[in-house]
């Protein structure tokens, strides 16, 4: 019985995680410029892998491997936002403009 409950919650968390990763993938494809694309990557991927790691931790149970899975979750949920922020800042400093704003300004100047 206990194993069924554990499998039930594993499935719930894994499906939620994959849903957020799908949302992130759609964001990467649909967003107009680099900065918003990186925004989708930083948030969606981190939340997605966070939920998936919780699901795998529930399935694995509270032992050394389970704690390592939580460690993977902590590292991934830190790495995503920090990595994307660093790249955002470098791209902005190097002069990569937001494409959507450029189009709006061009429309107004014509």
């Amino acid at each position, binding site marked *: 019985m206990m194993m069924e409950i554990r499998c039930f919650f594993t499935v719930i968390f894994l499906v939620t995680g994959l849903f957020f990763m799908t949302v992130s*993938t759609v964001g990467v*494809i649909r967003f107009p410029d680099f900065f918003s694309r*990186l925004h989708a*990557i930083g948030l969606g991927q981190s939340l997605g892998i966070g939920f998936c790691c919780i699901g*795998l931790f529930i399935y694995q149970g509270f032992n050394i491997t389970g704690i*390592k*899975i939580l460690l*993977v979750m902590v590292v991934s949920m830190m790495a995503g936002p920090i990595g994307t922020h660093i*790249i955002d800042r470098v791209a902005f*400093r190097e002069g990569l403009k937001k494409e959507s704003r450029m189009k709006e300004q061009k429309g107004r100047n014509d």
Partner: protein
Amino acid sequence: MQIFFELCLLATILLSIPILVMLLKKGGFYNHFAAILAVSTNVTLFLLLIGFIDSRHDMYVDIALSFAVLGFVSSVIVAKFMSGGGDKDDDGN
């Protein structure tokens, strides 16, 4: 649960392909690097799921942990390289 993990693995692969195709098609260093960031998270999950399918969790969890850390370190290193090798301070002077 074995089949469910395999389906999750397939979903993770299917989620990586459009990101790679779209960002590599767009060209430019920044889009390529955004693709690396996105897919490195997917590969971390990929490794975890393979561990559960292969029922050798402890080995694959270690690989996924090192891959997650390396993914983060590589983004910091590349960003430092792109911003002039780190000789500028935070305000870019």
